[in-house]
């Protein structure tokens, strides 16, 4: 009888161990570490993460995790970031951002940055601001933003990860991302982020006071109608239509898209503001479209 108790005890121990291991799955397991920095004023260590292996021109889902000196996760500070491009010509500009918001489920600060251009012709930095009580740290990370288009197997000038379109005096920027981080086969939620750069203002200019409170110089565009059509160029076919993107908030239009196989996918789009057509690769083959490979 005693042996039975021992067996049960061992079994429970295994169960407990298994449960414990399940609860300690690293939430950042599938993400790429951009940089880890030590913040002297708050005494914290901050790590910046990205969904993809490299940052690229387009919408990048990014995360920040904070740890104290003992390596424990810290979730009480506020975190902000600001990307900045110092152009070779001497001026600089920022990029549209979704400021990090704490995900209470995993203790990760989640946000996004739409890099409007790659690092070619200048240098990107990401300024990170962490405030804990009265203490604040600001740290600037040099980062490299690649031109993802250059790595695609299919090279087409109109296949983009970010669509930049000048209409009259206004420059529009459209980028896409997937709520599940990475594209996959099946139906999934896709978000089109739409911004316009304020006229005569090349983004938010760096000032002596810093730029955190000055915004980015990019405004979300909230009154567009957007249609998407998935199309596989090398096979010449599409995929069943999903739900067309509708504006949710802050220039983010949420819909669904279907990919019925892996490979090269062009997202033809028709973006209109009222009756004015901003982008129309659904009808005009040469017009700009989103593109991805997976």
């Amino acid at each position, binding site marked *: 009888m005693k042996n039975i108790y021992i067996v049960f005890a061992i079994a429970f121990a295994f169960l407990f161990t298994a449960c414990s291991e399940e609860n300690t799955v690293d939430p950042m397991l599938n993400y790429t570490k951009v940089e880890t920095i030590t913040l002297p004023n708050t005494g914290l260590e901050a790590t910046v993460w990205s969904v993809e292996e490299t940052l690229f021109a387009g919408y990048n889902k990014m995360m920040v995790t904070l740890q104290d000196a003992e390596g424990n996760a810290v979730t009480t500070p506020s975190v902000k970031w600001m990307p900045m491009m110092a152009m070779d010509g001497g001026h600089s500009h920022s990029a549209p951002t979704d400021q990090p918001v704490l995900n209470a489920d995993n203790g990760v600060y989640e946000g996004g940055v739409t890099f409007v251009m790659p690092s070619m012709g200048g240098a990107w930095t990401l300024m990170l601001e962490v405030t804990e009580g009265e203490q604040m740290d600001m740290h600037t990370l040099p980062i490299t933003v690649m031109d993802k288009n250059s790595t695609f197997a299919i090279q087409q000038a109109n296949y983009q990860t970010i669509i930049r379109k000048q209409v009259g005096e206004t420059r529009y920027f459209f980028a896409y991302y997937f709520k599940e981080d990475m594209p996959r086969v*099946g*139906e999934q939620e896709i978000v089109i982020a739409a911004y316009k750069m304020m006229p005569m203002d090349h983004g938010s200019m760096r000032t002596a006071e810093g730029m955190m409170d000055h915004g980015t110089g990019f405004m979300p565009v909230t009154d567009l109608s957007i249609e998407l059509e998935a199309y596989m160029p*090398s*096979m010449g*076919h599409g995929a*069943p239509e999903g739900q067309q993107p509708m504006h949710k908030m802050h220039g983010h239009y949420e819909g669904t898209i*279907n*990919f019925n196989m*892996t*490979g090269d996918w062009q997202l033809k789009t028709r973006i209109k503001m009222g009756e004015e057509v901003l982008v129309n690769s659904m009808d005009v083959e040469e017009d700009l479209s989103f593109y991805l490979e997976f």
Partner: protein
Amino acid sequence: MRLKAVMLGVFLGLWGISQAQRHTIHQDTIATSVLQEVVVEGEGAQDFYIPEKQSSLERIMDRTSSVNLIKRGNYAQEPVIQGLSAGQINITVDGMHVFGACTDRMDPVSSYVETNNLSALQIEEGANGNIHGSTIGGALNMVSPAPVVKSEQPWSGGLGATYHSVSNGQDYLGNLNYAAGKWGVRYSGGWRKHQNYLHGKGKQVDFSQYTKMNHSLNLRYLLNESSALRLSLIMDDARDVGYPALPMDVSSAKGNLYGLTYEWYPEQGSLHHLQAKIYGNNITHIMDDSKRPDVPIRMDMPGWSDTYGGFVETMWQWGRHQLMLKTDVYTNDVRAEMTMYPNQEGGIPMFMLTWADTRRTVGGVYARQSTQWTTQWKTNISLRMDYAHTLMTSTFGKQQFQTLGYAIEGADERLLVSPQLEVHYQPSEQWKFSMQGAYTSRQPTITEIYGFYLFNRFDGYDYVGSPDIKNEKAWQWSAKASHETEQLQLGVSTFAYLFRDYIMGVTDPSLNRMTVGAKGVKRYTNIPSAYMVGANANAHWWLTKDLSTKTTLQYTHGRLEDGDGLPMMLPLRWQQALRYQYKQWQLQAEYEYANQQNEISEVFEEQATEAYYLVNLRAEYEVEWQGKRGHIQVGVDNLLDAYYRTHLDWGGIYRPGRDIYVGMNIIF
């Protein structure tokens, strides 16, 4: 087992079963060992269905009275029983379920066996096929030969070879049996290599070549005089198989089939026979287009199918009653991939699962109660029930189906019930009549439920499955009559099917085609109603002791509820053979005619087929030497070099033209 009833022999068989004498394993083995050629049960006493000794199984089936072939190439033609095929019929090997691994049906189960590892071909039409699982169209069971166990001559066997001019083809078959008291071992092997054949206008049909190797090993051990164990292994390996009617070929199709069987013939009691079997088979089918010169997209389409199962079959007999009970279960795992490599520079490979990993488990029971009420009247009542559980285990596959608007979460579960009633009437020794009515149902195939963008070259559409598709059902009716004297065997059979929820592909304009050049996408859909009627007739007449003639007629006709034709309906087909036997010589002349087929399926985008006729000539000389027999065979198929295709042939590909063959074999 009730066998194909169109021909005269079936009635003999039916009565024979009910009045069967108890027999022992010993007798059984000797009976099968004598047969060196596959016997099509129910096709009558003479082997008109065998054109030559090394003939392929497909050639034999095509010459029977109720099986036809869908031809996509010169190899692995797909059997059709009375106009029904694929998921509508069961194809088994010794009762073992085997499922091809090709999504395009390029590897019917019959392609994984050879004629010299078969002793019999059992063709069971309509509801009679329910013995091997729920079916609508019937069953084709290939029976492997049992090794000789007790024999004065320990070693026996045979060797044969044939050359065909039309494809520069070589066929070699051989078998060897060793009997050692309680043990018996039989090996058979075959090798076939055919190049591209020439059609009736002398032009080469590209991509019609094939090479095939087959090995089979059977071991039998007598536990005692009434029971035995048997181990069966078949290894089949086909390579470089061309399919001219399809955009792809097969670089390799491998099948390993194995089973362990226990047989028991009790000496006393009501139990007449018991057979229990466990089995498995593994099929790997590699399809690609690497040898096609110009394709918009290079593709690899490997497929796998693994099946494991078992059954217990018993036959009980008491008084004028006979009861057959069979329970079986199997599980079949399939997976088929498609990887596409674009031709243009820079394209990246694309990947999808045309059969996402899916496991189908089916368990069922079959019962048939036969009562010989009087010497004239007999009834058979049978019932088949199956429970089928189909589970897609691939997350990737489930995500694929999201794009078609389906959220596949649980398993697909189905219950199938198929009752049948037969009445037999034999007013005299010469005349026999029977009628049967049945309600049958079959579960959709995995392709019909979960197939994903499978290109059908016949109509040029991509096909997708429908997870919510219903079972296909049919009310069946058939009537048969036969007459037999010493000089004449005559059989006539008519049949009718009234389908409910008939399954076929229907265009879905909301979906984009996937395959380059495809016309669109079809979803497997239940058509509320359809019907099919048909008739078979045959006559075998001994004009003299040495001269006989055999006539076979077939006809099917079917329509959907909207009046459109059912696809793959064979027009009137007439086969006539005249055989003359003189001493060691056997001479045979054959004539085959098929009517034009203008009743086509517009939904399936069929085209009308022209009428054709063929003339074949054969001669065989038997040699005996020191107690051994040998045969020398020469013949001409399609003597007039007709340029023809049947209505079941895909892709507008024409069949072989004049083929002169020379063959010989020796049996020792």
